[in-house]
């Protein structure tokens, strides 16, 4: 026995040593790559997996095979690239195996329902919080800690930890579950061991290479979230925009046809009294008329939405930014109670869009709304004054007049964001070097001159951020329109489509008409519009910095 044990120990030690582990790691990645290749073949041969999903899986699995080849080659040659590829593949395999395990054991579904049973644990949780607070009191610190731990344990029991654990173990005990557990464990152990100093030295790691791996690991939670929930859907929507798809059946690839329909315009001449459809090409509807010239579009509603959003942004942007700058200047003082005012102006920003829009919908009601009531009160007060001409209070139809509906949206949007922009400007103002103002005052500059020639230039970076972020929000307008104009068709479009914005339009196309391909194409056109707006802002900012 002792002989066997002595023989065994060096063998294990050799296997766990850096050279032994590297050989094992290379073997593991050969297996990993073969499994990925087999999976890719299975996807190709599968009759149940098709369309975009199959394409996506094939691309992903091919990337895994390629990464495994790089890892194996690099590990055998003891290069940094091999180490990097091995760590990345193992880390991603661990994450993927864990996610699939949680999915197949219904943990994600259970998280939804945890809310229902969580209430039973709240009393214990409150005790735990109280106990934690009491750990600050020295004489009872030890007892409070134990009470807190007991309360946390009681919370978990109350919300169903024990049956949950049993259920989880029961489900994970299936062949698939065990395979996923094994895959996750092997991957995480491999990634952790590869990162250790002796293995790094053996693989001739450089400080720069170590820093790269550490950096990637640090950003990986955010990076994976970005890839899964932003970049992935973004690319998927690009793929969908090249298809005719209703979200239910199989997508039909139609190339750029959706984009062609969006941008198709034509021009014709018409006599007075002649309707556009009489003179325009088949499939085109009248978009605008200039005298006898009729402009037609295959999708006039899209162009209407673009025109609406440009007008909206042109009005809402200055109304959300310029007042904010002046408000920030006023609030940039140490007057008593100034913090209360700062908080008050900020409140609309933290209120939900739906709540804000609902309140404004009541205020804007032309018959029983407070705004028209206020107008009538002001008119009454004016008329009560002597020697003044009598005025008649109008009853603006804020939500049903197609000439006013967009203005109503501008008011709501500006009211909501002016406070947030004020806080941003305030932060910018407080970073302006006060000696600049002092020097200007000594030189005899007026208050306006100081504001114009010191404050505004100093605020350029803040102004860039405020204009860019508010502009993007304006171009993406959706919630306010939908809540203010819920009874119009499409929802949020307002009287005669006067508040139809690109996002409202693409929502209608995608989720009411279920033209997912066309809606995705509209989304990409909007993306390009926002990108162009932001790009121009960046260019202007850069030019200003370089000019300075």
């Amino acid at each position, binding site marked *: 026995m002792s002989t066997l044990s002595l023989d065994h120990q060096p063998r294990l030690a050799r296997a766990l040593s850096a050279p032994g582990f590297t050989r094992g790691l290379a073997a593991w990645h050969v297996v990993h790559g073969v499994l990925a290749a087999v999976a890719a073949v299975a996807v190709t041969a599968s009759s149940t997996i098709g369309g975009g999903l199959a394409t996506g899986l094939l691309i992903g699995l091919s990337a895994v095979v390629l990464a495994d080849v790089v890892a194996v080659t690099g590990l055998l040659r003891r290069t940094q690239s091999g180490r990097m590829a091995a760590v990345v593949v193992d880390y991603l395999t661990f994450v993927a195996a864990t996610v699939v395990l949680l999915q197949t054991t219904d943990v*994600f579904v259970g998280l939804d329902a*945890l809310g229902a049973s969580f209430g039973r644990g709240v009393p214990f949780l409150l005790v735990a919080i109280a106990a934690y607070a009491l750990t600050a009191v020295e004489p009872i610190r030890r007892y409070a800690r134990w009470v807190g731990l007991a309360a946390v344990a009681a919370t978990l029991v109350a919300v169903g930890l024990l049956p949950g654990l049993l*259920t989880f173990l029961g489900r994970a005990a299936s062949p698939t579950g065990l395979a996923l557990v094994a895959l996750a464990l092997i991957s995480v152990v491999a990634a952790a061991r590869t990162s250790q100093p002796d293995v790094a030295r053996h693989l001739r790691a450089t400080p720069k290479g170590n820093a790269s791996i550490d950096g990637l690991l640090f950003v990986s939670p955010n990076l994976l979230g970005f890839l899964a929930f932003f970049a992935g859907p973004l690319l998927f929507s690009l793929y969908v925009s090249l298809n005719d798809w209703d979200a239910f059946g199989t997508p039909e690839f139609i190339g750029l046809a959706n984009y062609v329909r969006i941008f198709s315009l034509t021009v014709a001449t018409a006599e007075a009294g002649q309707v556009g459809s009489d003179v325009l090409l088949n499939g085109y509807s009248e978009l605008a008329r200039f005298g006898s010239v009729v402009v037609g579009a295959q999708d006039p509603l899209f162009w209407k939405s673009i025109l609406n959003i440009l007008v909206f942004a042109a009005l809402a942007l200055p109304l959300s930014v310029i007042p904010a700058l002046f408000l920030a200047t006023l609030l940039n003082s140490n007057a008593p109670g100034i913090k209360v005012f700062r908080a008050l102006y900020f409140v609309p920003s933290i209120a939900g869009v739906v709540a804000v829009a609902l309140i404004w919908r009541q205020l804007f009601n032309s018959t*029983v709304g407070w705004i028209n009531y206020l107008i009538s009160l002001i008119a009454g007060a004016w008329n009560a004054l002597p020697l003044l001409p009598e005025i008649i209070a109008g009853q603006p139809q804020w939500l*049903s007049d197609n000439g006013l509906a967009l203005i109503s949206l501008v008011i709501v949007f500006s009211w909501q964001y002016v406070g947030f922009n004020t806080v941003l400007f305030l932060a910018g103002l407080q970073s302006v070097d006060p000696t600049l103002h002092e020097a200007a005052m000594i030189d005899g500059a007026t208050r306006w001159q100081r504001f114009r020639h010191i404050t505004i230039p100093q605020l350029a970076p803040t102004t860039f951020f405020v204009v860019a972020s508010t502009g993007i929000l304006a171009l993406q307008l959706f919630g306010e329109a939908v809540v203010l104009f819920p009874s119009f068709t499409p929802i949020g479009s307002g*009287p005669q489509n006067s508040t139809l914005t690109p996002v409202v339009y693409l929502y209608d196309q995608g*989720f009411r008409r*279920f033209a997912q391909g066309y809606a995705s194409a509209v989304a990409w056109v909007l993306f390009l519009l926002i990108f162009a707006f932001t790009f121009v802002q960046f260019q202007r900012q850069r030019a200003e910095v370089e000019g300075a």
Partner: protein
Amino acid sequence: MSRYRWLGLALVLAMLAAACGSEVSTDTSDGGTDAAEPAEETTDAAVDEPADEPADEPADGEIALRWRTRPDNQAEIDVYSEVSETVDAAWDEVSLSYEPGGSETSSYQDVLRTEIAAGTAPDVFWIPGTDVADFASRGLILDLRDIAEGTDAYAGDDAYYSEVMELLTVDTEAGDNSALWGLPRDVSTFALYLNMDLIAEAGAEDPRELAANGEWNWESFREVAEAVAGLDPQIAGFGMNNWWANPGYWINAAGGSFFNDDRTECAVDSDEAREGLEFMTGLYQDGIAVPYGEDAEPPFLAGQVGMFMNGRWATPGTRASATFDWDTVKLPDGPGGPSNWLFWGAYVVNANTEHPEEAFDLVTRLTSGEVQGTIAELGANIPSRIDDPAVIDTFLTFTPPDNAQAFVDGISENPVAEGPLWEGDWPAFDGALAPQIEALVAGDVTLDEFQQSVCGPLDATF
């Protein structure tokens, strides 16, 4: 890593484990795993569930079915929950789970379609009548005819309003009415909600008496509306919301229609439709009505509108909020005679359900006379069954309004059934018509221009 971070990590993992024990995590009705979950996986939470609440967890051997409606208020949610529990208790083989959907303005259909695309929609759900063609043509709901013919549970097409069943049985491939896409949950009609205090103050004639005497027509309607509107600039004689059915009534009552007879072309450019829209537009342009596009319900409930056109579904809100003397009256007869809409929605079966027979059985149970009676007691809508007069009597006993008969009368007065557009795209038709009517009411286009151009974009939707 500090001890507190380890503790935090352990807490998160423990919460994940606890999530496995939560009720829904073991619900397999839509997950593709066995419907019959092992009994030992039942959690404490499920055991602790009050006996009077529906159990999400199917018992051993039971089939789990989920179903959904679009309730208009909490009272309806309560009634449908009660119905679900009653049906569940009387049905040994099936475990029911009722899911109240969002309201009309919270995009009930959009959420439902998205869930269907994701494969998480309920087995049985309610959809408005206008959506049936869209759902059927996309293959989202089952043709239930074969199942219906194989069971005694189905009372037959004759047990429901014929106008509705005619639209609910269209088979576009066969070109006849041999399909069965679902069964109507209930029906409803329009009526005018009256502010009797305002009408009396204006010295106008009582619309109910005018209706009883056969004198309730557009002329007398306008006289009452004008009298009430003359009380004060802040008071309107009439109000209705911006919805396709509202201008549709004026078109229909003038003898017109949205569509031609076989519903394959636009007919909004007919002279009859023009006459109806001319009368309607006059109400707005003469300042008698709440501005078109404004929600007319808040001013009506605030006591500032004499007559408010809406369906029976507005009754619970009016009962709760109106502080004035109110009642209802049938819609006035137009130049084309009496007219109304027959609104309806249907319970349909998800094409992806694993239990189509049981799902159809559930549909028949939800539309049984007994269940319809329970719902009729709420008074929100009219029962869809016509083979049980007692159910209608139950509906009529729900007062106020005293004149609940106004809604029932609407069914017999040349109603036009809210209908799916089997040969066209209803959302596109609706989306193209609404702004044109808004432009007409606003005076941005003349009646001549409207008549000349309205059908161009509408015909493109067929």
